[in-house]
């Protein structure tokens, strides 16, 4: 059985960079656009890297900044200063 993790963001300016970064680091992830929101799902694992986000934004980025734009998640969370990972092990 397929075991998907997912994350949903508000469809706003911050989130668009986040989606770009996620697509770059998780090329197999599927991005779904719904009214006012963007939902991204992937098999088993999805990662947001601080380094990729900082490249996209051109500024320092704290991983916890994602708390402002996230709507929902599915999967076990592993967060530290460099990444935010969702996964089913």
């Amino acid at each position, binding site marked *: 059985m397929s075991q998907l993790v997912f994350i949903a963001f508000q469809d706003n300016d911050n989130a668009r960079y986040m989606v770009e970064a996620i697509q770059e680091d998780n090329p197999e992830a599927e991005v779904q656009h719904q009214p006012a929101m963007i939902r991204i799902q992937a098999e088993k694992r999805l990662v947001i890297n601080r380094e990729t986000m900082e490249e996209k934004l051109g500024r320092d980025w704290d991983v*916890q900044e994602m*708390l402002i734009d996230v709507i*929902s998640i599915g999967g076990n*969370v592993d967060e530290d200063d460099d990444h935010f990972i969702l996964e089913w092990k």
Partner: protein
Amino acid sequence: MAVKNKKLNLKDKYQYLTRDMAWEPSYQKKEDIFPDEQFEGIKITDWSQWEDPFRLTMDAYWKYQAEKEKKLYAIFDAFAQNNGHQNISDARYVNALKLFLTGVSPLEHAAFQGYAKVGRQFSGAGARVACQMQAIDELRHSQTQQHAMSHYNKHFNGLHDAAYMHDRVWFLSVPKSFFDDARSAGPFEFLTAISFSFEYVLTNLLFVPFMSGAAYNGDMATVTFGFSAQSDEARHMTLGLEVIKFILEQHEDNVPIVQRWIDKWFWRGFRLLSLVSMMMDYMLPNKVMSWAEAWEVYYEQNGGALFKDLERYGIRPPKYQDVANDAKHHLSHQLWTTFYQYSQATNFHTWIPEKEEMDWMSEKYPETFDKYYRPRYEYLAKEAAAGRRFYNNTLPQLCQVCQVPTLFTEMGAPTKLSHRQLVHEGERYHFCSEACCDIFKDEPEKYVQAWLPVHQIYQGNCEGADVETVVQKYYHINIGEDNFEYIGSPDHKHWLSIKGQKPADQSKDAA
């Protein structure tokens, strides 16, 4: 860049907050300080295993919450200043908000009280910190929802006395009793009920597709508070999953207790969300996703992945999930046809879906809508056109546990009413389903005390014996303004005048 490392990293900061600020009691016994931690039978051997994967500390918490609030209130201001209510898809939509404000927002407040209470009851500091933050979040949700809807209250009926109605109105005993049940349980059951079963497994269905639907119907204020609340919810969901894993890892004796709670609270949550099914399919004039589709994505798919993950602990999916999965084809239609006939006793209006809406439902519910439900609406529309808009004057039989009228049908038999009964200590009790009957059997001494609105009316505890007195005096529903059919209501007329149209011929609209 080298200077940056002088800052504490996330893990250290979280460690300092949740471990180093706690202490071992020296002159009082631990079980006297935390007297509710044992009686449910849950065994915790090592609280230090508790981890919040977000590792949120108070400084970061206030910083991000303040930022969320600033964004949110800027939008509320803009919405009110620009008369945002005039830009929604259709005023029928506002009825979903009336249900939300009376049914959901008071639950946010109940959650605040619940987390404030259990946050005092755990001897582990990590759990106390997590519950404290969630308590503050829930209070914020309750307040922001009331602020968002105060603008609608200036222009539409039925929003004037939500907290009062929540404690009295018949269908609002469904959400109220749900949270009262959780809050009167022990602390570990409360977390399993609310953090895990409700927040993690089920709330996506309310806050994600419904809020996306609010955006699609032009309601900038609601989508904004919804998503702002949901951004806290992402943390709550993570907590919910961690709580379950933590309890299960602590002791194998915890597994059967938690399994029973998951069975119970999945079902209680599913029954509560039947209200959301009708909000999505019937009360959003512009439709994004059907209830069945939302159930497939957010329960069958995401819940499936979750319960697969929990297999390693000996946890199986909730006992009655097959019944819930089968019900996705029927739920919203059975709810709406019931509310349609009891509109004389609700603070919101109901209506027959328009032709395009019925066609949408035929497409989304190919197996069931045309066969079982469209003919009912065609009949009701014909009655209304002939001046006999149907209201049911018999009070419904309520389920002793979920308190929903016994309106559901059996799995695989959509014309057979689902009903169970049981005699307990000489009294007969009625249930909507096997699952609710099971919940009663586990704790009859709790559910015999249920405050069932219909029984209370018949016992003379609701200020009168006839529906009109109860509705007006006991519920504070303004007759002829808040209740009855939408077509021809003051809200409908007001909306037409906003749009520069005259009220259409009533019989034509109703058909």
